[in-house]
């Protein structure tokens, strides 16, 4: 069906795809696994024409194509169900399904509603969905909307009269367990009509639904796996490469936290997305917050930095109450925050390394010293930060909070997102060193492995509340499966 060969795509500072070759055959479910930044999303976007590769070819049914957008990809029979959904909320499900390809449902520029309904129903029937085609999309649940998206993608079939290829980008990330089962049932049905590419963070899911799994690592295909013989552990090893985890996480730099002195104290904090949160961080402790999407951990993290409104509760640093009215107050109180959206919220990419590092301060700072201490690879301090690699950008953001020496609590929201293995390890080293120097660290980890390996304790959040606290000291790490059990 689809044959990709030697696909390459480079962005400034990072190679997203580095010679990817793979095939998707008719009636096949192909899994894509890989860490964040491995190139999964870029590959999918290249297949629907949202990203134009620098080199390499995409052949569809033997013919080489250059895709210029979603519409052209659709005429070639490729459709994508996006992670963040792409439906228009104030239209009916039927209108959304046929949006852009209304065909006989429009005559003289007017909708023929009965025909529209029939055509949409036909698509929904293919996947056996019971969604009412005349329901307004915004009234549907997330899972129902996803079904509508799949039906929409299948409508491609009518136009091309060829078997479509459906790309599912992280379709399960916000679904409940039973909805996931339903989705898997749909994927089995889909197989009769189409080929499916399935991307998920959850390896067991990938292994469960796929006929074959490609593992991506650092923009390359690290290997092809047969789900019948491989296990999640093997898949994971292939994803992260042959890293010895102990040295990867710099366990040797770990110091036991000073039990007696509380750094950050959160008392009954409430806000949109989280309720009645109470916990303490002691000096030198790394506490990870685990939770699925929607657990409220991101909201909590931003609220602690004053970047989200708090409705009740109190936060104390070293026994003093902190006003949570804005990030500036939080910075004054000794808090630092590394946001997950590095490009948008972390750095000002058009400005220099030095400007980014010293952004909040009015007095000149010793930028050179910190470039050296954190081994930031930059030609000089005046280089625009946008031309640095992701890892070096992140180090500049970290340096911003370190250079005054007044940092007391560091909030890390996915600090290693999109970084390569080496850069991750350097960020881990920094976190260890900071903790050893007495900073209390609250970590929203990028992966469960990172969450457990780096932390002294794990707070599990579910539906806006902290449900369980697990001790995770070095040498007595819990099994990831046990943590997942608490999360869902």
């Amino acid at each position, binding site marked *: 069906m689809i044959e990709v060969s030697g696909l390459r795509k480079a962005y400034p500072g990072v190679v997203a795809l580095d010679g990817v070759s793979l095939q998707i055959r008719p009636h096949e479910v192909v899994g894509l696994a890989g860490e964040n930044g491995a190139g999964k999303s870029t590959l999918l976007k290249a297949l629907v024409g949202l990203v134009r590769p620098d080199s390499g070819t995409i052949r569809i049914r033997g013919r080489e194509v250059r895709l210029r957008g979603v519409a052209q990809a659709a005429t070639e029979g490729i459709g994508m169900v996006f992670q963040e959904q792409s439906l228009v909320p104030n239209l009916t499900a039927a209108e959304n399904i046929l949006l852009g390809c209304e065909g006989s449902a429009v005559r003289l520029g007017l909708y023929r509603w009965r025909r529209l309904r029939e055509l949409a129903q036909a698509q929904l029937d293919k996947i056996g969905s019971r969604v009412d085609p005349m329901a307004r999309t915004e009234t549907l649940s997330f899972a129902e909307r996803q079904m509508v998206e799949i039906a929409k993608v299948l409508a491609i079939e009518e136009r091309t009269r060829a078997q479509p290829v459906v790309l599912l980008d992280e379709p399960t990330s916000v679904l409940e367990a039973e909805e996931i089962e339903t989705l898997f049932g749909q994927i089995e049905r889909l197989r009769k009509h189409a080929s499916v590419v399935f991307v998920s963070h959850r390896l067991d899911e990938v292994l469960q639904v796929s006929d074959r799994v490609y593992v991506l690592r650092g923009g390359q295909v690290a290997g092809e796996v047969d789900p019948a013989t491989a296990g999640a552990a093997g898949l994971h090893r292939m994803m992260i490469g042959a890293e010895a985890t102990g040295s990867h996480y710099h366990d040797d730099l770990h110091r036991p936290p000073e039990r007696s002195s509380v750094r950050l104290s959160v008392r009954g904090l409430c806000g949109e997305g989280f309720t009645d949160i109470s916990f303490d961080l002691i000096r030198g402790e790394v506490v990870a917050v685990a939770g699925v999407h929607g657990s409220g951990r991101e909201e909590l993290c931003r609220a602690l930095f004053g970047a989200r409104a708090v409705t009740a509760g109190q936060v104390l640093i070293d026994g003093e109450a902190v006003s949570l009215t804005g990030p500036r107050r939080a*910075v004054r109180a000794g808090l630092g*925050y590394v946001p997950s959206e590095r490009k948008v919220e972390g750095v000002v990419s*058009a400005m220099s390394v030095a400007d980014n590092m010293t952004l909040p*301060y009015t007095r000149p700072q010793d930028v050179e010293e910190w470039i050296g201490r954190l081994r930031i690879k930059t030609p000089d301090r005046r280089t625009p930060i946008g031309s640095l690699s992701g890892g070096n950008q992140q180090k500049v953001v970290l340096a911003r909070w370190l250079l005054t020496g007044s940092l007391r609590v560091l909030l890390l929201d996915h600090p290693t997102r999109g970084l390569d293995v080496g850069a991750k390890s350097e960020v881990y080293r920094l976190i260890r060193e900071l903790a050893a120097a007495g900073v209390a660290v609250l970590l929203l980890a990028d992966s469960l492995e990172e969450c457990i390996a780096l932390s002294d304790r794990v707070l599990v959040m579910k539906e806006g509340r902290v449900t369980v606290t697990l001790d995770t000291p070095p040498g007595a790490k819990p099994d990831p499966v046990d943590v997942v059990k608490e999360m869902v």
Partner: protein
Amino acid sequence: MADAARVAGLRGRLAARVPERRHVVVTAMPVTAFLVLLAALAVASPALLETGSLLTLADSAAPLTVLAAGATVVVLCGGIDLSVAALASLASVLLASWVPALSGAAVPAVVAACAVAGAVQGLVHVAFRIPSFVVTLGGMTLWSAVALLASGAATVPMPDSTPTDWAFTRLGGLVPSAVLVALATVVALAALMRFTPLGRWVRAIGHAEPAARLAGLPIARVKVIAFALSGATAGLAGALLVARTFSGAPTLADSLLLPAVAAIVVGGTAITGGHGALWRTLVGAGIVTLLRVGLSYAGVDAAYESILYGVLIVGAVALTIDRSKLSIVK
């Protein structure tokens, strides 16, 4: 790994040394356009290159330059101040009516009052989270109305011109003082943007407000200061106009709004914020002034001028806008 690091380092160094092509265009274009215009005018009328006429040209550009200089700071923040011309008109009325009571202190008082007016607009913008173009569009009509009321919809003559004489004289019988005022304004604001944390913060907010916020910058305060600076230079521009007309009038500076916006964007400051500089506005004001002179020299009716400003603004914005910031352009 080491290789990859070296390649990344090299790429970074290249990116630092070789500015992207668009950047070169945006930097070189305004200066080139200015020089080409000057050369064209000089060919058409060689007398123009004499010191005297060049200085007269510069003198006529001074109020516009001052007006656009402060507004540039707001644009660097990612906003826009459409009220500057109306505020300068109001300043002219206030100055003419305050001179009898305040004499020499009237100019500083007017500049301060306009700074407050600008700051109020900034406060409304940040406190109620209303887009700056809406707030200042409202401000524009508000200040116009206040000027009309304060002047009784008529020209207010200066009873005594001594308090503003300094702004319309020739030092050593040659250099127009207004040109020095304009240059001093530009240099002062440029120094503020270049050497102070405020300047860094203005650019950071213009480039990436979410990042600036999470770095703990005092966003609201910076924006209010930017609008106050814009108001203050509008007041100063009003004073320069009063000095040369010996009167204040409720619509005295109104026709300068489009030229002022044109001067900012033609100079190469991006309307999306962040990218830009004060010297660019100086060059932009020069271009706008030369075009106006050139048109009248060529015998084109002044009514066509606005067409030119419109085309200039749209063209310059098309070249300088930072599209990475706008996935959807509204």
